[in-house]
């Protein structure tokens, strides 16, 4: 019977680590049986304690303890130990090397001269996280929650109030460990103080919620940057969360990372169907709810809300114009996230304008109704301009700033039309503001982003919320890996 490889310490002599499914181990199995029987080697078998045979010198390493602690990367591995110290290690089959290490001549003359080995089970990507936790000890600060074998884990997590209404991925230790590999930051680093409960949020807590949201590890730095952006005085996430207005944080990713993560900046960019777009914003919302305590109906008092509060993140499409982040002083090569407080998107249709002047007038008309036709200066907006609309301006040689300048000129509002009582509508600005031309948006209050599918003469407007020190300002943060 095979002995269990309890001890992982190396004993004097030669140890061989094998795996029954490795063709090189199979090739050398007769030789290994001969060597073992003659007392030349001890065998540690990773998957089958009867491979290459059942014998007292074949040790069961199916727990992978020996392999893990001796850093076995491939099988077969031969380790020669003298006076308790490893003096040499060979990997794979190579007759000459084996003969030298074993000090035996004419080993298995019928075999090929050499054959490389296979990967060790102890470094297999689907086992390594679990083994690290098992052998290196628990490295998490978060409490472990046991879900009973008869419980449905999806229901159990929902019942604990951890979900946003949609199923969440169970944040097991191995999944969270893999997620943490997505950032170079330490798991106990504090990312942000999360409102409304002003809870300190570690990288580990972000990773747990990112697993639940369905993120891949490479998205984690983006999720972290999103949280760094919104948990600032300028963004005022507490107010965004608590307001009765139907707004939430919206994230625009700019720079080369968007393509590397496979983010969508094209067809259906503001919709569903792309993993990164769908899960990054969702992870942020789960952190706000689970760590910050900002649950809908609790501190989140939105009268109506919008579907984008499930998570709203998209990538900016490259264009000849400067990107959104460049407008905030970053370079086009920097990877950034811009957070903006906004409502759900609404399309602006113009299928007939061929000149940039006509299209600008048309877009300006649509933008006047952002939030309310009676609202001026107090709220920002994001204009998502589609490739076909953009081409009207590019073809005519207009720059982004030229476009915004023209738009601003067209967005001067006659205050007499929007004062309280005008047109029989009680809502409006105080009548003392009458007799003026007022800009619809404050300077810099219209954020222009290029994104969308290649066909379709549509753009989208995303209305904002109170801006400035009494509300929320857009915040851009660099994504650090």
């Amino acid at each position, binding site marked *: 019977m095979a002995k269990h490889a309890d001890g992982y310490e190396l004993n004097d002599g030669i140890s061989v680590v094998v795996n029954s499914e490795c063709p090189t181990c199979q090739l050398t199995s007769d030789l290994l049986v001969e060597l073992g029987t003659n007392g030349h080697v001890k065998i540690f078998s990773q998957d089958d304690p009867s491979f290459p045979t059942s014998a007292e010198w074949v040790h069961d390493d199916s727990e992978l303890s020996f392999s893990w602690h001796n850093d076995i990367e491939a099988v077969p591995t031969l380790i020669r130990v003298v006076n308790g110290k490893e003096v040499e290690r060979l990997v794979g089959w190579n007759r000459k090397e084996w003969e030298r290490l074993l000090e035996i001549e004419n080993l298995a003359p019928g075999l090929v001269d050499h054959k490389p080995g296979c990967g060790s089970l102890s470094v297999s990507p689907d086992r390594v996280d679990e083994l690290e936790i098992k052998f290196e000890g628990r490295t998490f600060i978060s409490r472990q929650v046991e879900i009973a074998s008869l419980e449905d884990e999806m229901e159990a997590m929902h019942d604990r109030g951890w979900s946003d209404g949609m199923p969440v991925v169970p944040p097991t230790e191995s999944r969270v460990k893999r997620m943490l590999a997505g950032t170079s930051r330490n798991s106990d680093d504090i990312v942000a103080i999360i409102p409304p*409960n002003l809870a300190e949020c570690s990288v580990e807590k972000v990773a747990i919620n990112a697993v639940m949201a369905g993120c891949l590890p490479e998205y984690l730095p983006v999720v972290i940057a999103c949280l760094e952006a919104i948990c600032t005085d300028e963004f005022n996430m507490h107010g965004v969360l608590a307001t009765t207005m139907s707004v939430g944080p919206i994230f625009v990713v700019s720079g080369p990372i968007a393509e590397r993560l496979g983010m969508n900046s094209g067809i259906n960019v503001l919709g569903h169907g792309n993993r990164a777009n769908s899960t990054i914003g969702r992870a942020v919302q789960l952190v706000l709810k689970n760590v910050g305590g900002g649950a809908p109906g609790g501190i989140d008092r939105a009268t109506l809300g919008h579907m984008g509060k499930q998570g709203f993140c998209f990538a900016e499409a490259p264009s000849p114009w400067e990107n959104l982040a460049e407008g905030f002083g970053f370079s086009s090569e920097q990877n950034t996230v811009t957070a903006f407080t906004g409502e759900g998107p609404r399309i602006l249709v113009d299928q007939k304008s061929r000149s940039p002047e006509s299209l600008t007038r048309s877009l300006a008309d649509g933008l006047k109704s952002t939030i309310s036709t009676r609202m001026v200066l107090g709220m920002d907006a994001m204009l998502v301009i589609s490739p076909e609309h953009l081409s009207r301006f590019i073809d005519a040689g207009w720059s982004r700033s030229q476009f915004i300048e023209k738009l601003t000129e067209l967005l001067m509002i006659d205050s007499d039309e929007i004062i309280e009582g005008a047109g029989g509508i009680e809502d409006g600005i105080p009548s003392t503001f009458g007799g003026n031309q007022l800009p619809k948006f404050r300077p810099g209050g219209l954020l222009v982003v290029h994104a969308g599918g290649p066909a379709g003469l549509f753009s989208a407007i995303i209305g904002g919320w109170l801006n400035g020190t009494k509300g929320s300002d857009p915040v851009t943060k660099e994504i650090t890996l």
Partner: protein
Amino acid sequence: MNQTLSVLDPTSEDRSPEIQLSERIKSIEGSIIGLLDISKPRGDVFLNQLEKRLTEHGATVLRFMKPTFTKPAPVDLRYEISSKCDAVIEALAD
């Protein structure tokens, strides 16, 4: 054998400290009552009415105002209210 699943807690795991409620006022008459306007339109309409009614019932009314309704009240303002008043009424409006 069925195996249990172990997951990590996604919440902050902070436990809120138990807060002792202040003593409730026994009567409006003779009490100092703060009225906090959160700076929303027409909050003053509601609070003026409350002030009138409370004063009729013998209360002394002090008025306070948050700089903006979008953010929590500044700590100094909260301290001022708690040190000057026996009770406070915060008014939402629109």
